[in-house]
């Protein structure tokens, strides 16, 4: 019972895949989100348009469809490019799309759009006078961003980042459909083999709940840290 009919170690490995996948895609999403927010705040209309198109398209299409499109379509797209390379320049390479990597890229790409919206709002919420003051102190733009704009922006962005992270965590379950051995896939395989859905699915659900609860606690602490000087962390409410 306790070793899950021999599936215990694989379930544990699957849990590790889920956590790694979620954390790596979070990094991709945050970087993409910052880029998107800058694009949407850019005075250049072309860059602004690209940012808006990206967030609108991604947020209008189901995660699963995007995942299938990028995973299956991406492989064919890469093959077409490498074929062209072969015909044109006689360069013979073969790139096989790795399921884990494509999972990270896809989830990062999807949540980059959501993060972009979060960061855009947060950047706009920082008072312009703060940056003027930083400039008056003689800070260069990089230092002003690091010491003044970023920390204050984070106070406004944290609740949104927290929500996005919770949704992202649950979205990782979808990679089991495109063949990645995360814990949902292991549990689904085990269920099909043993016909005991409750034995496998409930522990997996419990792990998701555990991660969600831990991250909620972590975000509450971060919120406290970033609202130093603003009294109670009133912005954080689930």
């Amino acid at each position, binding site marked *: 019972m306790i070793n899950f009919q021999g599936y215990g170690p694989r379930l544990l490995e699957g849990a590790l895949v889920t956590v790694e996948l979620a954390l790596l895609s979070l990094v991709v999403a945050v970087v993409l989100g910052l880029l998107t927010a800058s694009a949407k705040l850019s005075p250049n209309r072309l860059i602004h348009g690209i940012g808006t198109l990206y967030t609108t398209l991604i947020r209008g299409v189901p995660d*699963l469809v995007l995942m299938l499109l990028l995973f299956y379509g991406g*492989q064919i797209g890469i093959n077409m490019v490498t074929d062209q390379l072969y015909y044109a320049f006689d360069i013979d390479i073969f790139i096989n799309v790795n399921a884990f990597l494509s999972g990270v890229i896809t989830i990062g790409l999807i949540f980059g759009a959501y993060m972009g919206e979060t960061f855009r709002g947060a950047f706009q919420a920082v008072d312009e006078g703060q940056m003027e003051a930083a400039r008056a102190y003689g800070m260069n733009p990089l230092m002003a961003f690091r010491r003044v704009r970023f920390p204050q922006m984070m106070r406004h962005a944290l609740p949104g980042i927290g929500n996005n992270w919770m949704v992202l965590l649950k979205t990782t379950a979808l990679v089991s459909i495109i063949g990645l051995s995360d814990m949902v896939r292991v549990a689904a395989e085990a269920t099909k083999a043993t016909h005991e859905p409750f034995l496998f699915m409930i522990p997996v659900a419990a792990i998701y709940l555990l991660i969600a609860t831990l991250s909620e606690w972590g975000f509450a602490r971060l919120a406290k840290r970033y609202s130093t000087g603003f009294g109670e962390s009133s912005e954080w409410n689930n």
Partner: protein
Amino acid sequence: MEQLNAWFTDLLAGNAIFTANTLGFYWDGLVTTVQLVFLCLVLGIVLAVPLAIGRGSKRPWIKWPIYLYTYVFRGTPLLIQLYLVYYGVVFFDGIQDSIFWVVFKQAFYPALIAFTLNTAAYTTEIFHGAIKNTAKGEIEAARAYGMSKPLMMRRIILPSAFRRALPAYGNEVIFMLHASAVASVVTIMDLTGAASYVYARFYAPFAAFSFVAVIYLCLTFSIMFCFRKLEKRLLAHLRPRGA
């Protein structure tokens, strides 16, 4: 009509994938998706209204079980909930011998149950938040009129809470439309299921999935448009004058 038909045939003549046959698949998928999402949303609201009222109750044995329910269903992936219902439904004793089996041996109803439970959990929290944010003055005024608690709930709190919940509920509707794509995993031929079939049949992932992405995009925009209109109508009294 004949002209339209000829134009249509011309349009489709150029490619091998989007024949009338595969478009029929997409159409059936669209119908299934819309049915599934619409039914689960309606059932979800029916469940969520009493749950949201109970969630704000002072009695712990009413409040905490509801909180636990929403916490669990909002904290775990819909895919797992779907698997649990889909594979778990046979474990109810005697269901395979009862008349219900005719219903439950198809994948549609287990999926509907899982989706309903999921959306009801989110909707409960949305309504609960809206009820909690009712202006104190509205309640005081209702009490001053001598309204009983149920009457106050029905005439004052719920109508104003529904209005305030509208934008968040619009997001939930779109979220549910997108989440319903996982139904294709348990053999339901919804939109995504149709696209997967076309992909497998022609090995044309790009065409198959981008076409379905466009359909989802149109659905999303229509829902957004409807909710904008509805908000404009129902929240008209909150807009500044002459704006």
